[in-house]
């Protein structure tokens, strides 16, 4: 039989339906946990990996998973009577074994079946519409951020962070939905895939896989997002589970509860703002203030200590504005002032990709915004006269050099790249092309 070369209208319709079903599973926030299905799936997962049948513990949230893992690891031996060899030695993670099993026994097998039966163009199209789309919305925008924030908050506590699973969470929605579509149109039959598919559909959010114990949690009760599908809520948690655990996000950026609540109560100070060393978090705080209390409050927040000295607008050619957003691209304002008896200067600028506002520290001697913002770009001294053009993505610069400079670049040393200098505003803006 030949390969599938084109999707029918019905199949195209089904493709969108499959994508939406998987996205709705988490974002509708009304998927009930099928506890029996979840536990059967976990037992199968351990069996497939050659592991003993685990004690299965269900909690409400991913933070609950961390607490449960901590308790299991610190359980006194005398309480070891739960019939599943649970004791203080049961701490080894089995994520590698489980990961290898799913990767080799399930994923590789269905991948081979689909590649054998479907032409690359159809494969690409379904991956783009289903797999990649879900992966972006679920994996990149939700679970990876949640895991990262839990790891950060646990690392400041008495609990040792326990790695979550590689396979067995909503992180798998993208690739599983992709093959779910081909499964539904009869491209392959694979018992392992169907079992793994059912495990995910049972309503599991995430899990910790230990030797002899598996701890999993339910899907969240609530997720709030902005129109760019980033987690976002200026009044409360952006994502929240049944046990009350939640996380605050502003335009996709995590904020600690104490910071979020202080801003909401108008107790957050400019001193705290400038002590924050993460520019993305500072930008999220600005976004929260702006959206919650408006531009006037935002202006007063800064103007108590800062006054505007100069503004420079870099008018770019139209071709450099493609894929940028907002009216503030290329607008830089220099502010100066005094905070805690320290003379300070900041350049206010905007992200061309998202229009988020940033305040970047510059030396106080600057008297114009153009030179001030240029002072934050650095180039190795020996390559300064060979710059062909500069591009910027967030805080990363990519600099292309002329032929001689490129030859020198290939031999550049650690000492060379550390011996840098800044450009003047005129030099910098003559070289900068794309900024995102």
């Amino acid at each position, binding site marked *: 039989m030949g390969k599938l070369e084109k999707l029918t209208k019905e199949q195209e319709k089904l493709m969108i339906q499959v994508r939406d079903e998987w996205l709705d599973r988490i974002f509708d926030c009304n998927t009930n946990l099928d506890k029996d299905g979840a536990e059967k799936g976990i037992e199968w997962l351990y069996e497939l990996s050659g592991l003993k049948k685990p004690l299965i513990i269900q909690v409400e949230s991913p933070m609950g998973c961390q607490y449960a893992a901590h308790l299991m690891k610190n359980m006194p031996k005398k309480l070891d009577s739960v019939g599943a060899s649970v004791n203080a030695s049961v701490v080894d993670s089995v994520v590698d074994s489980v990961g290898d099993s799913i990767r080799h026994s399930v994923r590789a097998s269905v991948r081979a079946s689909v590649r054998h039966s479907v032409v690359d163009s159809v494969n690409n199209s379904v991956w783009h519409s289903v797999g990649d789309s879900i992966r972006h919305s679920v994996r990149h925008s939700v679970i990876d951020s949640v895991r990262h924030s839990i790891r950060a908050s646990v690392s400041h506590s008495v609990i040792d962070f326990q790695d979550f699973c590689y396979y067995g969470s909503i992180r798998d929605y993208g690739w599983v939905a992709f093959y779910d579509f081909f499964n539904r149109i009869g491209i392959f039959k694979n018992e392992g895939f169907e079992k793994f598919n059912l495990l995910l559909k049972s309503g599991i959010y995430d899990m910790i896989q230990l030797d002899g114990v598996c701890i999993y949690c339910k899907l969240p009760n609530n997720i709030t997002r902005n129109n760019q599908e980033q987690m976002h809520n200026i009044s409360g948690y952006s994502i929240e589970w049944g046990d009350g655990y939640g996380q605050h996000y502003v335009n996709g950026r995590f904020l600690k509860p104490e910071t979020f609540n202080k801003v909401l109560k108008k107790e957050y100070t400019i001193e705290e703002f400038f002590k924050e060393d993460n520019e993305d978090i500072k930008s999220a705080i600005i976004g929260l203030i702006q959206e919650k209390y408006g531009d006037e409050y935002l202006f007063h927040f800064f103007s108590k200590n800062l006054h505007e000295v100069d503004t420079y607008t870099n008018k770019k050619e139209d071709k450099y504005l493609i894929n940028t957003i907002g009216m503030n691209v290329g607008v830089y304002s220099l502010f100066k002032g005094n905070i805690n008896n320290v003379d300070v200067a900041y350049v206010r600028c905007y992200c061309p*990709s998202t229009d988020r506002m940033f305040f970047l*520290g510059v030396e106080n001697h600057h008297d114009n915004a153009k030179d001030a913002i240029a002072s934050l770009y650095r*180039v190795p001294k020996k390559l300064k006269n060979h710059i062909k053009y500069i591009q910027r*993505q967030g*805080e990363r610069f990519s600099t292309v050099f002329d032929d001689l400079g490129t030859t020198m670049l290939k031999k550049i040393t*650690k000492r060379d790249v550390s011996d840098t200098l800044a450009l003047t505003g005129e030099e910098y803006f003559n070289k900068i092309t794309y900024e995102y």
Partner: protein
Amino acid sequence: METKQLTVNVAPSSDEGHYVKGARKVVDIEMDITESFVVEGKSTLETKNHTSIDLDEDCLINTQVVFNPFSKMYEKVVD
């Protein structure tokens, strides 16, 4: 299609990372102060919160700095 491409994070101190995809070679030169990488070959620079950039020619990637008025020092931008 579900494919894997060699990617290199050229922003190790960034929470989200900035990833060079499709380059022939990526060499880390200095990681502590400037986070400098030499990228050879046509590639793309991708990250979560910004539009992707085409890297059409060999280039140097390094990080923006900011001046901390309280420590009176330049620091690499953290995001």
